[in-house]
C-alpha cells in the first residue's frame, strides 16, 4: 500500500554517518576534520600520490612520480563526489586499508573517482624508469599470482563493508 502524504516517514534504522560525531571522533584521535578542506589542495594531491603510489608498487615512490601525479591531477581533473572524497580522506589516514577499499570498489563501483585516481597513478608509475620493471610482462611466479588473486578476493571482502559505511 502506498504511503499517504500525511504518513510519518518510516524510521530508517540503517547506520548513518553523523558528520558531527565523525568530526568529534577525529578530534579525539588528534586528526583534522577531513571535510574541512578541499581534497584537491596541492598538499593533499601530493599526499595522495605518495599513499596511492606506495600501495601500488609496495614501496615509496620517486619524487618525480609524485610531481607527475600532481601535474596530471591538474590537467586531467577527476570530479570527486562527496562519497569518494570521504573514502580518499579515510584511505590517506589508513594506508593499510587502501587495498581493501580499492578491491571492493573494483567490484561494486569500478568507475569511481577513487579508482580513476589510482589508475592515473598506476599509469604514471608504469612510465617511470625506476618503477617500469614492475609493469613489464614476464617474471613473477605461479605462487605469486595465486597469492595476488587470493589476496584480491580477501581484500574485496574486507573492503565491501568499509565502502558501504564510509
Amino acid at each position, binding site marked *: 500500500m502506498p504511503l499517504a502524504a500525511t504518513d510519518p516517514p518510516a524510521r530508517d534504522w540503517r547506520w548513518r554517518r553523523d558528520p558531527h560525531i565523525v568530526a568529534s571522533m577525529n578530534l579525539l584521535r588528534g586528526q583534522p576534520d577531513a571535510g574541512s578542506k578541499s581534497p584537491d589542495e596541492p598538499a593533499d594531491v601530493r599526499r595522495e600520490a605518495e599513499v596511492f603510489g606506495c600501495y601500488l608498487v609496495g614501496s615509496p615512490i620517486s619524487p618525480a612520480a609524485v610531481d607527475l601525479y600532481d601535474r596530471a591531477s591538474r590537467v586531467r581533473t577527476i570530479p570527486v563526489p562527496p562519497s569518494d572524497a570521504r573514502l580518499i580522506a579515510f584511505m590517506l589516514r589508513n594506508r593499510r586499508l587502501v587495498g581493501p577499499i580499492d578491491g571492493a570498489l573494483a567490484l561494486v563501483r569500478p568507475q569511481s573517482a577513487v*579508482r580513476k585516481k589510482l589508475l*592515473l597513478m598506476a599509469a604514471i608509475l608504469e612510465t617511470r624508469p625506476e618503477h617500469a*620493471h614492475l609493469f613489464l610482462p614476464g617474471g613473477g611466479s605461479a605462487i605469486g599470482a595465486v597469492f595476488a588473486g587470493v589476496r584480491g578476493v580477501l581484500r574485496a571482502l574486507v573492503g565491501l563493508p568499509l565502502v558501504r559505511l564510509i
Partner: protein
Amino acid sequence: MAAQTLVESGRTVLMLDGGQRDDHYGPLVPATDFVTARTTDPDQHRYLLGDRFEAVPLGEVRTGAQLTPPRQFITEQVAKYLPLRSTSFFPLESLALGGLGSGWGLGCCRFSDQELAQAGLPLPAMKAAYAVVANRIGISGADDDARPYTTADLEGIQPTFTPDPTTALLLRRYQRRRGQLRQQGFHLGRPALALLTEPKNGRQPTSGRDLDFYSDTEQAAYRPWITIEALRRQANFRYHGGVLVVRFREVEDGVEVDAIDIDRGESLTFRAGRLLLAPGVLGTARIVLRSFGCGDTLPLLCNPYCYVPCAVPSRLGGEVPRSGTGFAQAAMFHDPGGRNEDVAMASIYGYRQLMMFRLLREAPLAFQDARILFRYLLPALLIMGIHHPDATAAGKSLALEPDPSSPTGDRLTADCRLDDQTVRRNTERERGFFRAMRSLGAWPIKRVDPGYGASIHFAGSLPFDGSGLPFSLHANGRLAPTTRTFIADGSGFRFLPAKSLTLSLMANAHLVATQALHE
C-alpha cells in the same frame, strides 16, 4: 595510390587533404627499443601517456581509444569537422595526412576471385592492380596455410618476421592438429603485412624495436605519408593540406570543388579537369550527398567485429624477448566451404606496446593485485580480433541532417543494425573460432563487442551497378550521373569480405585512377 598513378602518367595533380599530422610527439620517441626506452627514458611519459595524460582512459572507452599519443593526430579535428550522430554505429574517421592509413594495422589480403565478383570489382584488372600496389608498398608474408587468403599468387613477397614466442607455440600446435582444423574450415598462418623485412626504395626493414604504435622513423611500416612525401618532390604534383572538401559541382570544362580551410575557417574553391574522391566511405557520402543537394539515404557495409583476449597457460610467466613488433603475429581464416568466398578472419596479436594500465581497469581486482597478475599473464596473452564479412541488407543507412553548429552546416547520421539471422550466424562462427583456439591451447577469456563500426572497415555507400542512377558508380568508378567525377575509395564495393581491406582499397584506387585517365 590514385595520386601516384596519375602523377606517374604525367598528369598534373592537386591533392586536397585534411593534412593533420604529428610534429609534437614523434621527435620525442627515442631511437631505441621498447624495453630500453621503458627502463631508461625519464621522459617516456610524454609519448606513452601524452603531455595532457590523454592516453589514460578515465572515461568511457570509444573507438580509437587504443591510439597512442603520437597517433592521436589521426582523430584531430574530426569531432568538429566530421560530426556524426548515431546510437548504433561507432566509426573512426580521420583528417590525418593520408587518412586512416596513418594508423592501419598493415594487414594485406588479396580478395579471392569470388569475393571480387561479389564486390563488383573486375577480376583481371584488380589482379594487375594488386601487383602494382604490392610492388609499391612492399609486403612480407609466409608460404603457409594462410597464404591463399592473404597474398595468394602475388609475387615479390618478402620473408615474414619472427613471431613472438606465444604465437610460435600456437603455430607449432597448429601443425600437429592441421588436418582436423582444416577439415573444420580453419586455416592458421602468418599474416601478410605491409612491413618490410628487407630494404626497399630507401626504406629500412623492421628492426624489432617494438615501438610501431609510436614511431614511423624506420619507414618499415608502409604509411600513406611516405608516398605523399615522395610525390611532393615531383613537379607535376601539388599538395594542399589543412582543407576539408565540402562539395563539388561539374561545370562546362571541369569540376569546381568547395572546401574549408581547417585552420582559418575560410571558404576556398578549386578547379580541376577531373575529380577523384577518396576521403573514405563516410567522407565521400557527406560530399556526394551535399553536392547532389538532396536528402537521400545511402546504404552502408561494415564488417562486424569483436575481440577476444585468450590465455595460453603454458606461457604464463614466460620470458618476453626484447625484440618484436606489435602488429598481427598470426592470422586465422574460417572458410567452411573451402571456396574462399565466405571467409571470416581473425588477426592474432600479442600485448606489450599498449602498456599494462589499459588492462588494469578491466580486472575486477585491486590494482596492486591486478598488476601482479597481469605481469604473470601478459606473456601468455593473445588478442584475437574477429572480422565477419558483410553484405548489403536493410537496416544500415547513412544520411545528412542540418546542424547549424557544424562548420559545414550539417552532420552525418547513421542507423546500422544487424538482422537477427546475421547475428546468430556470426555468433556461431565466433564459437567455432573459440573452439579452434582452445584446441591449440589458447583459452578465450572474454568476448568484447566494441560496437558496430569499430572494425573501421566501411564500404558500399555508392555501389557499382552500372545503372546510371544517382548515388551509384559505373564499373570504372565514375559517379553517376556525373561525367568528370570518380570515386576511388571503397564506396563502390557491393560486398565487404572480412579480410584485411586496405590492400584492396589501394588496388581499387589505382584502378579507378587508371580508368579515369582513359575515359
